[in-house]
């Protein structure tokens, strides 16, 4: 009899993690200076859009919003290792930054928050932040957490069967890794060594529940061992580190070495959603701790130190982002609302008007 593991202490995941790296490793193969600037700009823009969504909610212009402020390095950094439009992406509601970095335009993002007819994600049917985009190969998810795992495995499987070297990437929160479909989907992909990367955005909370209520392990990546796949932990607030880890995972997938479970330790610096009041369950001190580790500030600091960007250029980019956002909002606000007469379209390929009552 061999004992494979002693019980582990519960994770205290709200403080700084042990996986952070010193600043000397400030590069990732495949990220040029231009890439770094572009990705930093996307982080800034994602942040601004997320903040604006909350404002619109408070102004009564969007009944519900859910965003990812704080997760930008993880979201943009992982996408930076993908081939947009070729690789399959199945994000979750937190992934505004994934959608943007992949190529969804600010116009489209603002159509989404206003639930407009032309929103490419869902045309007002789903709540905002339920990402979908045909050209970007970003596949629509439900609100039910965990279902995206088997689906992403299936997309990876299709790519493999078709002989493409596309990979499939899916995203979820650490709390959602407790769903059975996480287990079943990752196991399916492991058995077939499918080109799948599972990115866990570990922000230490599932709405109000800290990680220790969700699992008795500190690193979600340890769950890789249940499937015989690679597991990796990365500082999710460091875009360069995220990109490096993601690139390894994507390359392994593309080369036929099977799935990776990539855990990015990060933090959301906003409430779970516009319906949440995070003061119920976490301190302002904790928030401040993480604001000090802001992924956008961190990359900016690096860009300045490495003389990739000047402080003035950075400010200009921030101003440009604000400008883009303003334009997009104006555009989207004026766009047409969905027509209730379209209620039944796209039910089936051949769908007609549905029965709404038995009254002739």
């Amino acid at each position, binding site marked *: 009899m061999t004992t494979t593991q002693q019980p582990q202490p519960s994770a205290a995941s709200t403080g700084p993690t042990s996986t952070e790296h010193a600043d000397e490793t400030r590069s990732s193969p495949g990220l040029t200076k231009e890439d770094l600037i572009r990705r930093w700009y996307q982080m800034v823009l994602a942040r601004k859009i997320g903040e604006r969504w909350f404002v619109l909610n408070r102004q009564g212009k969007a*009944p*519900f919003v859910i965003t990812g402020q704080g997760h930008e390095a993880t979201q943009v950094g992982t996408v930076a290792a993908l081939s947009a439009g070729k690789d399959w992406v199945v994000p979750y509601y937190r992934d505004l930054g994934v959608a943007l970095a992949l190529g969804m335009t600010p116009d489209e993002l603002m159509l989404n928050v206003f*639930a407009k007819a032309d929103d490419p994600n*869902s045309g*007002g*049917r*789903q*709540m*905002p932040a*339920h990402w979908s985009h045909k050209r970007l190969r970003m596949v629509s998810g*439900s*609100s*039910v*957490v*965990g279902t995206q795992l088997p689906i992403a495995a299936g997309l990876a499987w299709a790519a493999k069967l078709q002989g493409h070297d596309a990979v499939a990437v899916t995203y979820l929160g650490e*709390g*959602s890794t*407790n*769903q*059975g*479909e996480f287990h079943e989907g990752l196991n399916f992909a492991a058995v077939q060594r499918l080109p799948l990367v599972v990115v866990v955005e570990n922000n230490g909370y*599932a*709405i*109000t*529940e800290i990680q220790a*209520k*969700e*699992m008795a392990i500190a690193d979600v990546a340890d769950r890789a061992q249940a499937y015989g796949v690679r597991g990796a932990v990365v500082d999710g607030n460091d875009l360069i580190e995220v990109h490096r880890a993601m690139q390894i995972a994507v390359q392994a997938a593309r080369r036929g070495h099977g799935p990776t479970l990539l855990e990015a330790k990060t933090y959301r610096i906003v409430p779970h959603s516009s*319906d*949440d009041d995070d003061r*119920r*369950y976490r301190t302002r001190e904790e928030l401040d701790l993480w604001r000090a580790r802001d992924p956008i500030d961190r990359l900016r600091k690096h860009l300045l130190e490495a003389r990739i960007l000047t402080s003035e250029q950075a400010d200009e980019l921030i101003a440009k982002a604000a400008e883009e956002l303003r334009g997009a909002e104006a555009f989207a606000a004026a766009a047409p*609302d*969905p*027509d*209730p007469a379209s*209620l*039944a379209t796209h*039910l089936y390929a051949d769908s007609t008007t*549905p*029965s*709404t*009552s*038995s*009254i002739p």
Partner: protein
Amino acid sequence: MTQTSIAEAIQSAHREIMRDDDRVILLGEDVEAGGVFRITNGLRDEFGPQRVFDTPLSEAGFTGAAIGAAIGGMRPIVEIQFVDFILPALNQLISEAAKMRYRSLGAWTVPLVVRTPYGGGVHGGLYHSQSMEALFAHVPGLKVVMPATPADAKALLHSAVQDPDPVIFLEHKRSYRLIREEIPDPLPPVAIGQAALRRDGQDVAIIATGLALHHGLAAAEQLQAENIDCLVLDLRTVLPLDKPAILSAARRTGKVLIVHEDHLTGGIGGEVAAIIAAEAFEHLDAPIQRLAGPDIPAMGYHPALEQAFLPNPDTIAQAARRLAAY
């Protein structure tokens, strides 16, 4: 006396129940902090960490654990955050909870209550608005209640927890704070399986549940002005259905309109209609009518799409008017 909302009624029922019976435990996602609808606010403080208990995000896991705990002598109340998220737990509920007593000849039983918000009108979109009672109303071994009023919500939660068998307890989320009434003290018990005649009438019977019941009552008011006299029956429990009450409503009026928010096809309205068509046939003066959500996957998030989905007093009144004129 004060007006109590449905949310408050359910809250206070929890407190009473948990004070009365220390086998009762409460579990679900975020329930310690009060849950997303604040129904469980304060319970953790009053009853402690052993009895009010946040679970990992895994509906099958914690529903199954509650089934096990029920077998083991506890009286668990499970909160599923939205009924839309109950599907992962359906296997536990249908394969295990519903069949446990039957398959063990009564050796093992599952006194479990699964509470969960359903229904639309809160901009919940496709996955925070669904009505799923029909999935459960087809499962022998379960009981399924859908209280429409604060007093019923409170009394039925008491009955559900006392029930020796698994009860699915569906709370219309739009009605939580919308519907208020004075709740008598002491509160007369409400047995699971009994409908309530909310309004007597002889022209048309409106049979409904949940928030649609209130729309039905509003429609009946409108129609009174037109001298159409509507009976309004609140089903309250959809499994088992109160057949005598349904049949007597049908017989009294000869014209029946069944209303539910869930989409039409395969909804519980079909079962109600079938019962009437079989057992009150000779009393019918008109086709049995159903008014329900349209047969689409669920209601949209945009207010225009949401409103187009939902039955309301006007659409109900219009349907009842036609039926009266038949």
